């Protein structure tokens, strides 16, 4: 009972579009992950087919330079395709940010987050609201801890992952 009440409270505050600076003391302990699934639709088999067949949609990763989080223009088509897909089926998507192993775990977590947010912002600018997007970071936890030089490039990326895949 209490939990659902809390969930409702949390969601209502989110729906109300309250700016993120207003975290109220009364919020207390928070709702479990994922909080947004009730707002969005599940992935239908048709949607899954499209994901598999559309070459742009099979592209899921955006890569970044060292310590960078700006999205290069080569990814515009891919992002546009995904934006279209999300809007069409109203599905939820999680952007997972990553970083290579160099630097502290916590800072890399933040850097990964910045990359994921950058992708989320791109989707926003393509008309996708925050209801459909969750930005998450894994920092360096998925990275190759023993890479050297350019072998580390692939760890600096954001992945688009559809909820329910």
């Amino acid at each position, binding site marked *: 009972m209490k939990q659902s009440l809390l969930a409702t409270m949390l969601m209502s505050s989110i729906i109300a579009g309250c700016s*993120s*600076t207003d*975290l109220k*003391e009364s*919020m*207390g*302990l*928070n*709702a*479990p*992950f994922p*909080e947004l699934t009730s707002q969005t639709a599940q992935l239908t088999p048709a949607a899954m087919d499209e994901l598999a067949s559309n070459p742009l949609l099979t592209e899921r990763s955006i890569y970044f330079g060292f*310590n960078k989080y700006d999205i290069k223009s080569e990814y515009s088509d891919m992002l546009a395709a995904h934006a279209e897909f999300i809007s069409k089926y109203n599905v939820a998507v999680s952007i997972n940010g990553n970083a290579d*192993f*160099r*630097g*502290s*775990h*916590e*800072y890399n*977590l*933040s*850097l990964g*987050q*910045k990359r994921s*947010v950058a992708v*989320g912002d791109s989707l926003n600018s393509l008309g996708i609201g925050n209801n459909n997007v*969750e*930005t*998450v*970071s*894994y*920092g360096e*936890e998925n990275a190759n*801890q*023993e*890479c*050297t030089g350019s072998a580390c490039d692939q760890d600096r990326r954001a992945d688009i992952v559809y909820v329910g895949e």
Partner: protein
Amino acid sequence: MKIIQNYIYRFIFLLTLITSSFPSNSIEVIEILGGKASQIPIAITPFNEEIKNIDLEKMHKVIANDLERSGLFTSLDTSGISTIPDSDMLINFSNWSALQAQFLVVGKIITIQNKLTTRWSLIDIYKEKTVLSMEFSGSKKQYRAIAHKISDLVYKKLTGSPGVFHTRITFVKKKSEKIYGLYVSDYDGFNQRAIVNSSQPIISPRWSPDGKKIAYVSFEKKKPVIYVQDLTTGKRVLVANFKGNNSAPAWSPDSKKLAIVLTYSANSQIYIINSDGSGIKQLMRTRSINTEPAWSPDGKEIFFSSDRGGNPQIYKVNVEGVSDVNRVTFEGKGNLSPSLSPDGKLLLFLTQDNGKFRVAVQNLSTNQVLKLTKGPHDESPIFSPNGHMILFTYKDYGKTTKIGTVSVNGLKVTPLRVGSEAILESSWGPITNN
């Protein structure tokens, strides 16, 4: 009468002669400025013990390793000495002085059934007197604990600072791609045991200042969330699971609050929460990354890393009242992972120097920076509770991450023997009074 007068005059004359030949009253003064960062040479002789069936490291070795690791002592090799004293009687001071020893530790261990009684003394070679003389009793299991206690007492006596040789540390081991463990061990890596096992990464373990709990970040829910685990009961509470990331828990000095980092509002920002997860309050918000909070020992300021200036640097902000943010680090391409020494005078952090990550300390009054390690991938620096040693992880190019200590003067780097698996992050527990 005249004769007496004569003698008096003679006496006065003599006196003036004598006193006039005295040197002037001014004593010569010699000023000696500066000094050397040297180590006290101490000899720790093997204790006289008849313990059977113990394949433990010998007590004198444990003590010698403790004192050497601190960077303030150098233990002398006593293997060449024919007669080893086991008490402070009949010490041949000139012999020990000839070996350049300034202090000597001797001891005797008597075993009665399963009980050990250790009688030991700390002797000052220059002053030729006994400084400390004590007796401890314990079970065989407490063999190393007794050795560490002796190290602590010797350390305190000779340096004035409390010893940390009885304290414990916590660290995350990656046993394989799907097996992670959060461990607790003696400060030197011995007697380790797992308190959490997970198939997902664990990062940022932090021991509470009151020694009762460990906060850590776990990815077991497919995203980073913060747990606080009680060390006596083994029970844990999920204190932060907001939307987005929940990470970087930092205990307030009174163990009542945690500074944490949430990406609730997109990028990483710092919040303060009660240690049970209640009562959240945002510290500040900018468009940049603000993460890795660390409290000052007086609880008034929080140091953190931020990329508001482009590259990551370390800043500080008041917890209450005026929210002036001041930049603290200015050297190098990037500075991360701040923490404060127990006396609040030194900032410990990671500095990015020519592509290498190195452990460094900065004097907060003079702003002088001393790089303690050479890199290239040193991380997770954390002070010992007396501020004399730093625990950190390191690795060479393409090899497993290991854990070790460096003395705060940078002179002594010693690895910890905890096994061959990779170590992610670590934290140091407080001084306990037992």
